[in-house]
Every structure is written in C-alpha cells, then in structure tokens.
C-alpha cells in the first residue's frame, strides 16, 4: 500500500547514468581487504564509544548514508525551505484523519522541487499520531501507472481491500467497480467511517481520462456528506486547473500548495553542505568530524563556489543537485577519502556535457564531412531542408577544390553513411515527406547546432586540417 511507484521520467543522461551506477571502485576496494572487515565488525560492536574504524569501513558507511539520502530512500528529518507548506498540508490531513473533514488539495511545483518528499514527510509526521494512524486509509495512484479510470478503479478497490477483491485481483466490470466504489463511499459518513486519503501523483494525467470520471467522483465525494476523503494531487503543471472540466473544477476546493523555491545562492551552497554532511550518530565520530570538516572546506573553495553558482543558475531543484553530488560521491575511495574540488568540477563537467557533441566524436571522417556539408547547406539556404543529392554535391565541390581524392567515395558508401546519421538521429526526415520518394531525394533536416559541430571538430581526434578549414570557411 505504501508503494511509491518509481518515476519513469529519469532525467539521467546516458553517460552520467553509467557513471552514476558505476560502483566498481567500491567493490574493487572491498575485494582488496577481505578478512579485515570481518574482524573490524566485531570490534566495532565491542567498543562503540571510542570506535576507530578502518578508513575503508568508514567510507563504506558514509557512502551508504549519502546514497540513501541522495537517491531519496530516506526522508530528511525536516523538509527544508517548505515549512509553511508542510504545516498547511499537515493541518489539512490531520483534519481529515481526525475530524473526518473532506478536503482536496493540489501540490504544485516544478520537477524535482520536493513535492513527493513533502507529502511523505507530512504523512510520516501524521502517522506518528496514533489516532490518525489507526483510522487513516491511504490510496496511492500515479497517473503514469493508472493510465485510465478502469485501471485506477481497480487499484483503488485493491488498495482499500473492498469486498470484491480476492487476493490481489479485483473482479467485476468497469461499471460494476465504479458503482461498487461509489456505493461504498456513499454509505460512509463523516463521523463513523475511516477517512481515506487519495494521493494522485501526476494529477494532470488523470485529467486526461475520459470524461474525468474518476476526478469528478472523487471530488464530488469530497464535497458531499459521504465517507470523509482527502484528495491530494501532485503535479508540476501550473495550469492544471485549466485542464479540469468546469463541473470538476467547481468541485475542487482550489487549495493549491505551491513549491517554488526561491533560495539564494548562499542557501543553495548551505544545502549542498548539509546534504553531504554525515549525521552526528555516525559510528566513528572522529571520521565524521573529519568528513564534515572537509565538506565545509570544500564548500568554501572558490572553484567549487563557481561550479555551484553555475548549477544554481541552471536550476535550483533538489534533483539536479543530488545528481551532481552523487557523481562526486562515487569518486570517493580509500585512496581519496574526501571529496575534492576537482571531483566536483569533474562531476559538473559530466552534468553539463553535451550529449550530441559526444556522439559526433564517434563518427567517421566521411560522416563528419557530410555533417559539415549539411552545415554549409543550412547556412546557404537558411535552414531549409535538404536531400542527399544536395549534400553529395556540396561534398563533391569540396573534394574538387581540394583535388584530393582520398575522400572520394562511391555513391552507395555515402548512402550508407547517410543512413547511419539518420539512425543516430543527427538528421531527421521532414515530417511531411512521404516514404515513397527515393532515398536520395528525401528531404532532411540537421538536428545539430553549429556550435555543437564546431565543438566536436575541435575535439575530434586527428581531424584532417582541410576538413577543419572547410568547416570553418564561410561558404562551402
């Protein structure tokens, strides 16, 4: 029931993702010291107070704690920067849980702003109250998982353990299920039935369901004297209310909790520091002290500040920050038992790396030449689409000028290179062009910016000078 579905929208770039999950260094390190760890475990238990763990042990522990924190597996003790929202939401849910008052609320904020974290913190705090814990029922839905009302209804019925559930299966048709659920909610009343908390993650996607039946019914229940429910929607769309039909909208209470962080740079840096610090109950106090000190030093570093400034300018949300810190953390090892400014710079470089430019590095000279030809065509015709024949002609002109036959390729070879570029999605056919046209004449567009091409050329290993010159010359 308390399952939080993993979000699909992973913002990780392919490369950084690979790096992120590359925990090889740690494993290598673990294998290097096999027997010691066993004994040290016993030791740590015996003398916990003046524990002086081996460095390896400490680093493992630090990485464990920080990974949990950065991968959102452990909630912060207190949400930062959203105290007012936290209080508002907690009060609201408390009234539902304890007074049986029906409510509806939307939590709105950009991606990665901590909406789900806020809700989870609130729920954690709410459930500390025994009375609330005893009575509150929770239903978690996600617009990405419950893609239509039929599935959503089944999920609700399942999570509420209503009577038409056998095991994990819900029986009955869509209409029956709806009728059943509505009947169930209708039978309840404010004072006697257990309050139900409906959490609709990706709320905006529910608004796209047919007729918004589910939303209408949930909000209608929340506005009528039936079983007490609280509908909490989580969305990143600011215009979510415009998605609702007017009768659905009228039934919504229009409470919105906005999570818009207006943190300053100083706060941002401080946040980084707290995120990287280890808690005080760390087994090895000495190591903890050292680690925290090193983090403090790190954050005061000039270059680090610059990097953080750049990240701050780019985005202020938690998730991008966590990604950066995660990259830093994975570089920590026994040999380098602290995060250095260099680590942060490297991590930042990875974060800002241009995906397309990296792909250009892997192209052959011929393919690169074709790209350059396309760039020239783009310059020449101001972004009009082009076809293979035009590119080939442009390429031929270049070859003629240079009178160097080393790049003279047959038509089929060029065709193959062209197809490869299309597969890499560096070029894409114009939408309207039909598949019937011969491949040579199919209109294409380049999906690269000039700056990306020039960047790639600069870094391309052993790039022939004439090609470089050709690329830089104003006209083909």
């Amino acid at each position, binding site marked *: 029931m308390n399952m939080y579905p993993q979000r699909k929208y992973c*913002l990780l770039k392919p490369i950084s993702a690979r790096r992120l999950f590359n925990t090889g260094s740690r494993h290598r390190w673990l294998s290097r010291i096999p027997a010691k760890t066993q004994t040290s475990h016993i030791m740590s238990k015996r003398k916990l107070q003046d524990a002086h763990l081996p460095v390896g042990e400490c680093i493992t522990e630090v990485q464990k704690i920080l990974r949990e924190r950065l991968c959102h597996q452990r909630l912060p003790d207190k949400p930062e920067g959203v105290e007012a929202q936290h209080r508002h939401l907690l*009060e609201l849910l408390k009234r539902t849980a*304890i*007074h*049986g*008052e*029906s409510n509806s609320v939307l939590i709105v904020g*950009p*991606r990665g702003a901590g909406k789900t974290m806020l809700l989870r913190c609130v729920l954690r705090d709410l459930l500390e109250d025994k*009375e609330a814990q*005893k009575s509150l*029922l929770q239903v978690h839905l996600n617009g990405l998982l419950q893609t239509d009302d039929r599935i959503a209804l089944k999920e609700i019925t399942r999570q509420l353990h209503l*009577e*038409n559930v*056998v095991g994990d299966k819900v*029986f*009955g048709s869509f209409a*029956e299920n*709806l*009728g*059943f659920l*509505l009947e*169930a909610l209708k*039978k*309840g009343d*404010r004072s*006697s*039935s*257990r309050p139900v908390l409906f959490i609709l993650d990706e709320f905006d996607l529910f608004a796209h369901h047919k007729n918004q*039946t589910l939303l*209408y*019914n949930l909000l*209608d229940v929340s*506005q009528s*004297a039936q079983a*007490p429910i609280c509908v909490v929607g989580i969305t*990143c*769309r*600011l215009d979510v209310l415009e998605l609702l039909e*007017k*009768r659905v*909208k009228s*039934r919504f209470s*229009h*409470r*919105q909790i*906005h999570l*818009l962080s*207006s943190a300053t740079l100083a706060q941002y840096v401080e946040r980084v520091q707290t995120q990287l610090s280890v808690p005080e109950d760390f087994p090895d106090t000495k190591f903890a002290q050292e680690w925290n000190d090193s983090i403090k030093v790190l954050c005061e570093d000039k270059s680090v500040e610059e990097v953080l400034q750049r990240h701050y300018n*780019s*985005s202020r949300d938690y998730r991008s920050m966590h990604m950066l810190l995660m990259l830093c953390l994975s570089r920590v090892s026994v040999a380098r038992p602290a995060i250095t400014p260099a680590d942060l710079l490297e991590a930042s470089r990875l974060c800002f*790396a*241009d995906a*397309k*430019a990296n792909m250009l590095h892997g192209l052959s000279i011929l393919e690169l030449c074709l790209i350059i030809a396309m760039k020239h065509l783009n310059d020449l015709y101001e*972004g009009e689409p082009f076809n293979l024949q035009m590119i080939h002609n442009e390429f031929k002109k270049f070859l003629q000028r240079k009178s160097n036959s080393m790049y003279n390729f047959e038509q089929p070879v060029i065709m193959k290179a062209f197809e490869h570029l299309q597969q890499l*999605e560096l070029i894409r056919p114009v939408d309207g062009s039909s598949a019937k046209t011969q491949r040579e004449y199919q209109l294409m*567009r380049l*999906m690269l*910016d000039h700056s990306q091409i020039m960047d790639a050329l600069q870094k391309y290993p052993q790039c022939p000078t004439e090609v470089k010159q050709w690329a830089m010359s104003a006209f083909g």
Partner: protein
Amino acid sequence: MIFSTRYCGFVPWMLFASFTVLFAIEEKRNAMKYFTRLRVRRVYTWRGKPLRFNRKLKTFEYGSLSIKVDGLPRTTIINAGQHILIEGEDEDNPYVAKVVRLFGDESGKQKKAVVQWFARVSEVPLSKLKLLGREPHPQEIFYYQGRSCDDEVNAESILRPVQVKHLDGPAPFPDSDDKDTLFVKLSWDSKTFKLVESAVVESASEPTPASSPPPFPKPSLPPSPPRSPPAAAPASRGPSRRALPTPDPSIMHRASSGEVRYRRATMSAGKASTAEAESLHSTSKLSASKCLSAKRRCSSASTPGVRKKLQLNSPEKMTREDLVDHLLDEELESVMLAQRLSSSPPQAHSLPHSLTPLSKTHRAPSTPLTHRLVPLTHRLTPFRKTLGDPSGEDAAHLNPSDSPPSSAREDSTSPQQRDVMEAEFLTGSLKTPRRRNDTPKRDLSTRGQKAATPSRKKEAKTPREPALAALAEVDNENSPMLPSAVTPRSSKRKSAQLVSSRIRKQLNLLENHQLSDSDGEEEDEFVPSKKELQSSSEEEEEEEEEEEGLDSDEETVGKRSRRNAAGSLTPRSKRKTHVSTRTQRKTPNKKITPGTPRTPRHATPSIPSRSLPARCPGNVLEEARARLHVSSVPESLPCREQEFQDIYSFVESKISDGTGGCMYISGVPGTGKTATVHEVMRCLQHAAEVDEIPPFHFIEINGMKMTDPHQAYVQILQKLTGQKATADHAAALLERRFSNPAPRKETTVLLVDELDLLWTRKQNVMYNLFDWPTRRHARLVVLTIANTMDLPERIMINRVASRLGLTRMSFQPYSFKQLQQIIMSRLNKVKAFEQDALQLVSRKVAALSGDARRCLDICRRATEICELSAAALVGMSHVMEALNEMFSSAYITAIKCASVQEQLLLRAVITEFRRLGLEEATFQQVFVQHQALCRVEGLQPVGVSEGLAVCQRLGACRLLLLEPSRLGVLQRVRLNVSQDDVLYALKDD
C-alpha cells in the same frame, strides 16, 4: 362414541377429496404457467349470466371468469375472492392480487376486475425494505394498503390463480421450495409495515354478494346437508401435494365460496338477505374462526327459512347444523390455541384434525372431543400406535410442545417429506374399508402415466398417485358432511353438549349412508378424470424438473438418469434416493462456481468504520468551518425560493395527476441545481408521508457516475427494482415497464444529473429518457440537469429536443448579496466572520463565477488562516490572503522563482518572438538568442543539452508550450503566459 365412529368414517375421505381438489387446481395452475411461458393466447369469457347490472355505470357484474388457453382443453376459472396473478412488467414476478369483483361493460368487450393488491418484496422500494428489520422471504408478499394504486384492472391481464397463505407474525416461513405459494405476514401501505390479521387477508375484501356461481352445481343433491365440497375441505387440506394453503385461509376461502354460492341461490330466489350483510360485516371484525363460522352458517342454511332462524342465533333454536358448527368451532379454536402455543404455521394442525380421530376412533370410541386437538405431527406414529393402543396417547397428543418440529416438517413441501406423507397416507388409507377403490385407481393412473411418458423417471413416481387419488376420494366422499360441521361459534357450549347426542345419531346415520354408496357420482363430478389429472401432474413434474434444470445448468444428464434409475417402487427407498439426488445436485453447483469468481452479488460495499470516533469541532472557528463545508446540508436553501417553488409545483402536479413530464434545468456549476432538486424531493417525500400527495419513487442518476451512457438503463432499473441486468436487457425491461399499463404504479421521479454525458451518437439514451414520460402509462417525471443553457439546441437532434419539451429553468449565478446570505444562513449565528470580510468574499466570488462552492471554500480557508494567526474573528486580512491563494495565478510567482537560466530563456523567447514577429519559434532560434543574452549578462554560455533541459523544465511547468522533446533543437516553442506577464515578472530582477 357415535361421534368418533363418524370420524372414523369420513375423515379419510375428506382428506382424499381435498387432494383431488387441490390437484385440480394445481393442474390448472401449471397448465397456465406452462402456457404463459409459451405466450399462448388466452381467451377470457364470463361464466354464466351477469349477476347484476349497474345502471349508473352500465356494467354487468359477473360471478366468475373462465380463462381458456389455446390448445388446452381445460379452462381456468377465476372466482371472486380468489387470489390471482396479474400480468406485470416482470414476467417471473407477476403481480399478486385478490379478486374482489368481476364486471364487464354492456358490449362485453371490456372485462374488468376490482382487486385487492398484494405487494411483492420486489415492489417495495429497497430503501423501505429496511423497515422490515429482517431479510424478506422470497415468497413473501404484503397486503397492500396504499392508496395510490388503481384497484381496477383489466380482467385479461389475469394470468392464473395462486395460493396465498397467511402467517402469524412470529411464525417462521415454511421452508418451502415451492414457488407457487405466497405468504402474507404484514401489510404495506407504502410507508410502514404492519402486522396483518389473517382475517383481513382472507376476508376483509370478501366478494360482494352474488359474485361467484357454484363451480360445480349439483342440483340433484338434497339441500339440507349442503353439498359444497370445497367448504367441506378445510380439515383435509393440509396434506396436499404442494402449495398447501394454510388451513385457516383455505377454510375460510372455501367457506366464503360456499357462502357465495349460497348467496347466489338466495339471490336467484329473489330474497336479498339482510343477515348476509350482517355476517359480512361481522367478518371484518371477528376473528378468523368467527367469520368462518358465520359463513358456514350461511352456507349450511339451505332455505331462507332456516337461515332466518339461524340468524336469531339462540341456543334453543339451534339446528343440528348449528351444533356441529359449534363443535367444529371449538375445535378450530383449540387448534388455534395450539398454534399459538407452538407458534407453528396453522396448517400443521389441519391434518391431525382429520387423521388422528380416524385412527383413534377405530379402537378408542370413547375418546373425548379434545382428541381432535391432536397435532398433526403425530400423524404416523400415533397413527399406528393408536391402532394398537386403545386409549393411551391422548396426553401426548395434547402436548403442544410436540408439534413444532413435526409441524415445521409438514410445512415444508420438499419432495421427500411429501413422499413420506403420501406413503403414510397410503398405508393409512389402505386400512380404511375403501381399499378396493384404490386398486382400480392405481391401475388407471399408472396406465395414464405410461401413456403419457414412457420414461423411467415417471415410473418412480407412480406410488404417489394412488395415494393421492385415494386421499382425494376421501375428501370427496366426506364433503356432504362438512356443512353440518359448521356451527356459529358464539353459541354456548352447554347447548352444544345438550344437543350433541342428537347430532351424533344423525351423523352416524349419514355416515353409514355414505359408506355404502357415496363415492361414485360425486367423484366423477368433482374430480377431473383421473387420466387427465395424472398427465397434468406429470406435466407439472416435468416442468419442475425443467425449472430445476434451468436453475442449475450444470446438472448433467447422467445425474438425471442415475436418479431415475435409483427410483424404486417402494416409497421409502424412493424417498431416500430423492434425498440423495438432492445432495448430489447441490455439489456440482458448488464445484462450478469457484472457477471464475465474480463480484459477490450481494457484497455490501463499505468503507471500514473507524475505531475512534471523529472529533467534534472544538472552537468557534472549527464549528464555522464544519458548517461552511459544502457537504453540510443546510436547513433550507436560501436564494432559490423561486426555482424551488417552480420545480416543486411542476413535480407535485405531475405526481398528483399521475402523469409524466420532462424538465430541463441549466446553470453554471455551483449554483445549487442539484441541491434544489434534492430539497424539492425531500419536501415532496415529506408531503407524501403525511399523505398530501400520493407516494412516489425518487431515483437519481448522474451522467458522470457511469462509465457509459447506456449504463443509465442499468442504474435506473437497479434503483427502481433492484434487478441487475445488462444495458440492453435493462433498456428492454424499462421500456416494457413504462409502456405497459400496470395498474398499480407509483409515479417515478427521475433526476438525471449531468445530462450532457448521456450523449451518444444516436442519442438513443436521451431519446428514451424523454420518450418514456410521454407514454400514457409511464407516470414518469424526468428532471434533467446540465450546465449549458442551450444544450437541447446544441447537442440534441430534433426528435430528442422536441420530446424534452420547453419546460426549462435556468439557475443564474449567485449575486454577491445572495452569496452573503448563503454564508450567513450556513453560519447560523456562529460568530466567526467580520461583516466586511464576508462581503469581500461574496463580492469577489460573484464577480468571478458566482459559484457558491468556491465562496464556501474560500471562507473555509480564511478560517484556517485566521486560526494560524491566532485571531478570534476572521477579518479582512485573512480573507484577502485566502483570496490571493485561490485566485492569484501562480505563473508570475513561478517565473520569479525560476532559475537564472530559465529566466534568460524566457527572455530569449520573447526577444526571438519580437524579432520574428511571430508567436512561435524553434528552439534553435531561441537558443541563439539565449546565448547572446548569456554573454550580455556575463554568464558562461550554456551548451545545447543544458539549454534543452532548461527549456524542458519550463515546458513541464507549462510556462512554455513545447513540441515533443524528440525533435531536439527543431522543436517549436511557444509561450503559455502573456509576454507582458513575463516581462512584469522579470522586471524586478
């Protein structure tokens, strides 16, 4: 002594006769049932001449109606006073009623009947069934006392007679699988259930004088022991095969018919008796036995002279009949006493009545009168015991505590027990001197059986038939005796004893006479030919089988055959096999069901209830908040008085006229449409409760609360009748319900909320909803609610819009004064708001939408803010804050809170738009601007990937509108906010 010998003689015959009668009825019923199923045409004709002519109404009254079914030689006779089934919209559950009067018009074309209705469980609204406080028995019916039903029906809607039994309040329902017997315990007047007197059920609406001619006129018989066999049957009705009527009702039933018969005779003789009126009058007041005796008295008197004497009712002048009557009455009384003691259904006692004396009198001629009390249950054992034991068992018999278990057994008409009974009777009857009669009959019956169906299954059942036949015979032969047993109950016991000896003598004589020669002709007249009987019973059995087969499809042929094979000729073993087959039958059922579990049919959906009670509001603000919640129902709906009045009068007039109509109500959300209609319905229901208007049925569907427009049919049907059906079937059923003339229909008020959701391409759902009210017999009022005023013109095709009609009403958005009034009335003197604050809220909301819900929500939020700021009263500042929270657009805040790069990108977008002069640009174009701006701002230019990420973030918040991200730099970008807003938000930086 003489008395007992008399019993010895006639009782078995009585029994037998009753069997025959029942058999005949049964047969008819089954025939009718069978043919109704096949939808065979029925021909209705009056029997006999009109009894009376009503000059005013120009109607002829008739005594009985005969129904002839095409292709079936027999006819069914419907007499006044009989319980009948009347065609209704539900084929399986036709209406139940009791005929009061039958009449037709001059031309003879129209045949009508005045009936007293009974309501089936399914006809009682589901909500009211709760009043019952228990699960209704499926066979239970309620004596209907509502006023709203037309008690005049078309006689041609009569299907067939039916058995109706009255049960005492606490008495359990007989454990019967017989679908054809219905039980009355309570009366239903559309509001409450009340206990009903058996007398009321049976005779409150006794047929008016001269309503039924004697079904079996036998002018040849001497008048003094009135020959009406049905009247004689009471005691022996108990053991009939199935559909046993309770003795009391049946006795009275018979009695009444006997009376009627007699009345006709008197009428024909030209003497309207005042006494009759008197007795009739008394029936309504007297207890069941009293009225019974009264009727018997009437019927027993064969000549006016005797009757007159009887009316004097003096002990001195009592005739022999009177005395017998009296004795029987005593008996009846005691039976009733026993019933009460054992609280078992009355029917149980009727049998011992006739049987035990039979056995006892063989050896114990001196048994006192009380013997007749012996509960039926001792039927067999005592039977045999008494045969051997001359005097002993009386005490045991008298012990009422013995009766409940066995009587319960007898109630159940389950086949095994029937078999037992029959077997016992068989043995019993064999001991009677009329044994010889049995043999030929058995032959006959078996022969008939073989002719009809050669299957073995039938053979297994043969042993039953002779027994039945024999029993029937008994009844028959006994019949002349019975009227003599009718005594005014009120007559003094002493007098009865005085004359008892004389009676005994006479009875003895009579019995002897009977013993010698009475079987032949009477039997012929009374009982339909044995063959026919046989075959019909077989039919019935077949049908039974069919029904069972239908019930459990999974029953295999193999099982059937096994069962058949198992049937041996001895009754006992047969019973056993029957039992075993039944158990076998049940098992496959269970096996098959779990295969695919479905939604439990009667699962009661509910949210579990909380262990700790919800806390009540603690302070003024909390109280105010609770009152301001939209869900809290206000005492009245202010500001909608006019609309309320209009809807009220519309619906009320339709209800009281018994007509139908449509109304369309429109208005923007939150203007109180549904609330007003609900309020109207509450008021009307209250009015109906205090009998200002006829009762009606209110049901509600909501277009948003169904998954498909066609589900509307399903929901309507379910709310109307509790049935579940598929959409198509439900549509058909509703169509039938609303188009067929069903006489006892309450007006239905149907509220269709969110009408526009019921739109389909063919618009057939809407069409039907609006077409039904126009039907003559529908009595349907449809109130429809939607948001748009011109919905009929916009989405409905002409024929639908035309049927919706022009009764429309539009709810205007609330003005600020109205909103203020609404809040005030909700707060109801809870002082939580400053007056200015209220006015601010209402003005603001009225200016924006006029949505009352919004207004209440804002007030509620304001109380919360107030609570946080620890102020006592909600003031302007709190309200302002709440208003800002709810109305201010988040866009500007969002832009202000966006990161530097995001803000730059927005700026770049605007710059690019200005450059292009278009409101759209590709990311590539915007990106160029973005980099330029970065340089201007002195920031490090961002890469394409990062720029795209920034753009995506803005797109996710819907500050920008983007094409799918796979287009990369080619995707087009648009602003979702006005440029001015963006510039305003960015200005401060």
